[in-house]
């Protein structure tokens, strides 16, 4: 739970009065363009950065007053691979198990079990740098799961990965969620959020501008989209609450227009609400 979160760098607010509640057991998608405040929010929640105002609690523990207890509930996979590249995958895992204070008798068992679950066994004795991007990310995910966190923060988990690796990470996220892990996923890949998340929050310029299920957000804009362009090829969009209204509008356009009628997507919703495309600087 995040209440009134403000994070300022000098006079500039990177996060500006953010209120957010993520329900236990859900996959929450945190969507926004680059520079919207997603990563800052995750860094603040995961205790890596301080904040200027507001309250944050994880599983009922205030992250300032009960930081150690809150940290035990969280697993964080950062956007950048944050493993020690001088050590092997197994050594990184053991190091994480130690610093997460996992009891001695459970360390090896958990590492082996998770490595098998994620299919990492054959890479365990290789150095981090010898792995491909997808395997590095999976190793990072294993590291963040060793202490069995209740909430897993994934900051842009598939950025820079090829499509096969991306789909494998998506399957893994679903599997983890099925086992009861709450997932907080930030991404600027709209299809990733649509594919995985039951609830979405859209952040823009440090503020939460929309919150709800993807279909709720689409309905807010209009469930049917008309995408059309005339001789100048400038594509325009209009949204309607029913297909009939959309058809009526399409019929009113003259024959020089090319028209596509389709369901409204989360990307349409994002552009309408923020006035920016996902990925815009």
């Amino acid at each position, binding site marked *: 739970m995040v209440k009134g979160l403000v994070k300022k760098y000098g006079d500039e607010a990177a996060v500006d009065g953010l209120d957010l509640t993520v329900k236990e057991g859900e996959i929450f998608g945190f969507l926004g363009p680059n520079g919207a405040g997603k990563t800052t929010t995750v860094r603040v929640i*995961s*205790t*890596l*950065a*301080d904040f200027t105002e507001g309250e944050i609690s994880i599983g009922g523990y205030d992250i300032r007053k009960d*930081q*150690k*207890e809150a*940290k*035990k509930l*969280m697993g*964080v996979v*950062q956007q*950048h*691979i*944050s*493993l*020690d*590249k*001088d*050590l092997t995958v197994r*050594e990184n895992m*053991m*190091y*994480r198990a*130690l*610093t*997460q*204070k996992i009891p001695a008798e459970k360390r090896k068992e958990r590492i082996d079990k998770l490595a098998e679950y994620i299919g990492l066994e054959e890479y365990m004795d290789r150095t981090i740098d010898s792995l491909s991007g997808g395997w590095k990310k999976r190793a990072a995910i294993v*590291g963040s799961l060793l202490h069995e966190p209740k909430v897993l923060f994934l900051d842009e988990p598939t950025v820079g990965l090829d499509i096969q690796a991306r789909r494998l990470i998506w399957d893994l996220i679903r599997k983890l969620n099925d086992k009861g892990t709450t997932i907080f996923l930030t991404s600027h890949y709209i299809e990733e959020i649509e594919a995985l998340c039951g609830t979405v929050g859209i952040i823009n310029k440090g503020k939460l501008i929309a919150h709800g299920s993807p279909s709720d957000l689409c309905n807010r804009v209009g469930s049917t989209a008309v995408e059309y362009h005339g001789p100048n090829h400038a594509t325009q969009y209009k949204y309607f609450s029913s297909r009939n209204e959309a058809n009526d509008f399409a019929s009113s356009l003259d024959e020089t227009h090319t028209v596509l009628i389709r369901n409204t997507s989360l990307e349409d919703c994002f552009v309408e609400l923020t006035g920016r495309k996902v990925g815009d600087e």
Partner: protein
Amino acid sequence: MMFEFFRETYYVMWGDLRFMRHTVLNILISSVMSPLLYLLAFGFGLGRGLEVDGLPYIAFIIPGIAALTSLSASFGSVSTRLNIQRLYYRSLDEMLMCPLSVSAIVLGKSMHGAIRGLVSSGIIFAIGLAMAPEHLHLTPLFVISIVLSCFAFSFLGVSAALLANTHQAMATFSNLVILPMTFLCGTFFSVDSLPTVFQGALYALPLTHSSVTVRASSLGWDFPWISLFVLLLFCVAFFALNVYLIKKKKI
């Protein structure tokens, strides 16, 4: 409580111990190379036939070089590795998200430097003992002085690694702070031979206190207890600075 603190410290230092295991030969060679060169250049080259305070120059500079090695090995190893872990590997972030006390993180991260400093200084002093056995002595005060020096410079290395936001900034710090200390803080000559105004400035630097305590304890001179106390104060100050930087998230 104390047991938990030391256990957490061990957990933090574990990764660096594994790194040392992977690179032990490289560490040994690189740690003793520059002190051996100083010994050859200043001890046998420039210093042949010289006497200082009634001692052969070689016996005079060996404790100084041992103190200098505690600086270069401890500071160099911890500042480089931790700075890389912080800025490039980002693995320090992972550590900071674990349920560990900040004091244990600071002590654990500095242990790598302290161990390397102790090993390198020990090797240099062992060579010195073989070369000037009639003048040099391994005493408990020598061990205490070297251990304190290694921790002071290791904590300083942690501070530099936490504050430097680029490799360039780290190099600048080394050039402005570490390099002058290397040559001026009584390692190759007695600070007392300088004008009083320079002595005051040099006694504000930790390596001067390290040099005088290590030299006095190994040559059997009157021991400068005040310098040992000042060295301890440097340890506490650098440790406290590191705890402050991490707690206040100033990194």
